[in-house]
């Protein structure tokens, strides 16, 4: 049974108005692929025109990324980004804690990858409208041996916005796998994951409280931007590249037996210049650690470079 908001959106589409969708998550969550598959499924069915595009930087795995989709009955002229989406998706809960994935939406359809039930998720992220959740990381681990939520979120998105049949989504998913030249086994696992996820989507209609508004971020202007880029941007402590690191992992340097020879390989290989060292009479320098909190994006260059394996990537949050 379609809830009222869903019905409203479909009616709006049929009237010729566009439907906007926005997705937030971490690079590596499969966000782009989910949107590509859904766009292809809806577009090739033939009733609607679909545009889908990502927004990302030269960020490593773990950085926040965004994706957009616009669906319409006739040709779509509007090309700007989506500010107030009808449907907002959240692929990674951590992203939801860092940015407001519902910004610009006072009432809408929300699709989240979370272990929470829809009612709890609505409470946590202050969402008003129709909320769909799916435990994507767990399902990904179960079916794809990797905690990737893209297929489960695709299932939840299909539940939230049933513009085409399940078969059409399955077909588009298969085609996407073939295009990426995935092995047949992986294509089948994706399909199994999709069908299983469809049964595990929880949903709720949430009225919410008046205080649960999600205003648009306001443009603060460019005053105070430093001259040039690299060094000044660094000292301004904007653009912290540590945000690009894999969530829940950090770099540590351990040398209890004072084995560091001062070879400096870590220092010259670190693209961020965060290796800390002190002068040493015998060795020239002695490495004492790395300033990981602002700029370590866990590129692992130091781990690879150190002949004594003094660097290590471990579980744990940044301080």
């Amino acid at each position, binding site marked *: 049974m379609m809830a009222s908001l869903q019905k409203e959106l479909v009616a709006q589409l049929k009237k010729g108005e566009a439907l906007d969708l926005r997705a937030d998550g971490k690079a590596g969550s499969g966000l782009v692929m989910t949107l590509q598959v859904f766009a292809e499924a809806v577009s090739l069915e033939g009733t609607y025109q*679909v545009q889908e*595009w990502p927004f990302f930087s030269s960020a490593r795995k773990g950085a926040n990324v965004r994706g957009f989709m616009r669906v319409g009955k006739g040709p779509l002229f*509007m090309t*700007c980004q989506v500010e107030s989406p009808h449907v907002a998706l959240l692929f990674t809960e951590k992203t939801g804690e860092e940015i407001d994935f519902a910004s610009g939406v006072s009432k809408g359809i929300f699709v989240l990858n979370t272990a929470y039930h829809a009612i709890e998720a609505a409470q946590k992220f202050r969402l008003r409208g129709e909320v769909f959740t799916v435990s994507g990381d767990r399902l990904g681990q179960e079916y794809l041996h990797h905690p990737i939520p893209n297929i489960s979120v695709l299932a939840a998105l299909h539940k939230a916005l049933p513009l085409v049949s399940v078969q059409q989504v399955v077909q588009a998913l298969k085609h996407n796998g073939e295009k990426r030249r995935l092995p047949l086994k992986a294509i089948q696992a994706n399909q199994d994951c999709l069908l299983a996820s469809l049964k595990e989507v929880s949903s709720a209609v949430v009225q919410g409280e008046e205080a649960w508004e999600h205003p648009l971020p306001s443009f603060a202007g460019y005053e105070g931007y430093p001259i040039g880029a*690299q060094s000044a941007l660094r000292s301004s402590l904007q653009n912290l590249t540590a945000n690009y690191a894999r969530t829940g992992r950090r770099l540590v340097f351990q040398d209890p037996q004072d084995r560091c020879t001062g070879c400096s390989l870590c220092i010259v290989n670190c693209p961020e210049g965060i290796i800390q060292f002190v002068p040493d009479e015998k060795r020239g320098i002695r490495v004492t650690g790395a300033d990981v909190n602002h700029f370590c994006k866990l590129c692992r260059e130091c781990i690879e470079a150190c002949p004594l394996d003094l660097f290590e990537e471990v579980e744990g949050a940044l301080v």
Partner: protein
Amino acid sequence: MNPYGSIFPEVLDLEPLRKKHIPLYRRQERIQMDGNGAAAIASLQFWRAPIYAGFPITPSTKWLEMISTYINAGRFVVEENGRKVSAKRVKLLEAEHAVADYLVGAAAACRELIFMTATSSVGLDHMTETTRSLGASGLGNVVLINVYRATANYPLCIEGDPSDAFAHRDDGWIQVVCRGKQQIYDTLIQLPVVGMDPRVLIPTMPGYYGIKDSHRSEPFFVEPDSKIHEFQDSLIPWRCPLPGLIVGETAMGNCVTSAHFQGFKWEQKKRMDQVLSVLTASSKKFEEVFGRPGIVPFEAYFMEDRPPRVLVAMGPDAGTAYEVIRRRRKEGERLGLVVVRLLTPFPSSLLREALKSAGVIGVVNNAFHSERGHLTALVSEAVSGLPIQTTGFFAGLGGADISVRSWEKMIDLLSVLKPGESRFVHEGEVL
């Protein structure tokens, strides 16, 4: 003696190559794909393109990846003398400069074939020495797909900003801007025909905005390979001459004195002057064959009632401008929109004719320029002498989003700014 150098028909027999082509599409289909995909599909459908040279750089990498995926999947494998060989190959080179050099050699050796690559930003800059030579070389069979990306690496930005295209206007190539997947696909098919026309013989640089178009998927129609061949073969001469060599034998990069240099440039300019008419004729043929309009020098919207205020824009963001102007016209405002497609040679006379009744023009620039903006300068030049106020805007630099609010603001500013003034606009605010 052929003034353009010796031709060895017995060595280069094109017929077997044409027969080896395995079509990608046998009928028209509607597919959903991003811009790099649309460009790659078109590139793979040419029987005249047996080899693709490249070096990856974001955001153009996906063109090369997709070409490689098709080829390495064995999509073009044919049997030749009992051996299985691929009729198409990818040549991955050490760097962009090497790619451009490779294109020179290959294109000079086989003037009837099409040699393609795709690059962006500093990748194109790295090719500069060779692209400047290529512009004058007469090798119209080179196609360089320029996926626009900011050229400045202070700071590095991987998104779509046409500063690379503008920096290479003087390379002497034909530059065409695309927006949307159908335009990208269609332009790729049509442009080599213009470049290889014996009156033109100028390499071509079709371009589209990085991320905003290269990574945005949309539905579009792909045509059967046979129809593409029919179109291209009807306009590309079976034997292409190569102009501009003094003694007659083929050589690339001769050293000359000023007495000759100027002569070559005069010839090059004359050929450039032919582009517009050749392009128009091939667009007519394109429409006859495919039923869609071919490349136009610029798109004109809402210009029928000669609106007093006109925005001139470029690239995918013009779509939002179209929508905003459509809404405001419903409320009774007479506004027009011109979207530039042919960047080089710039269609000044046609643009002057289209804009002559306007009172105020606002030109939207997406690339950094120390003066009023490259596009503003070009448009001002086109309408010079007419009683028109030309103002300029900078918006969407580095591929920044140009929101509805920003377009509204720019339209509002049209009646406020003084002639010659320019403003940065972002998120609806004037900076």
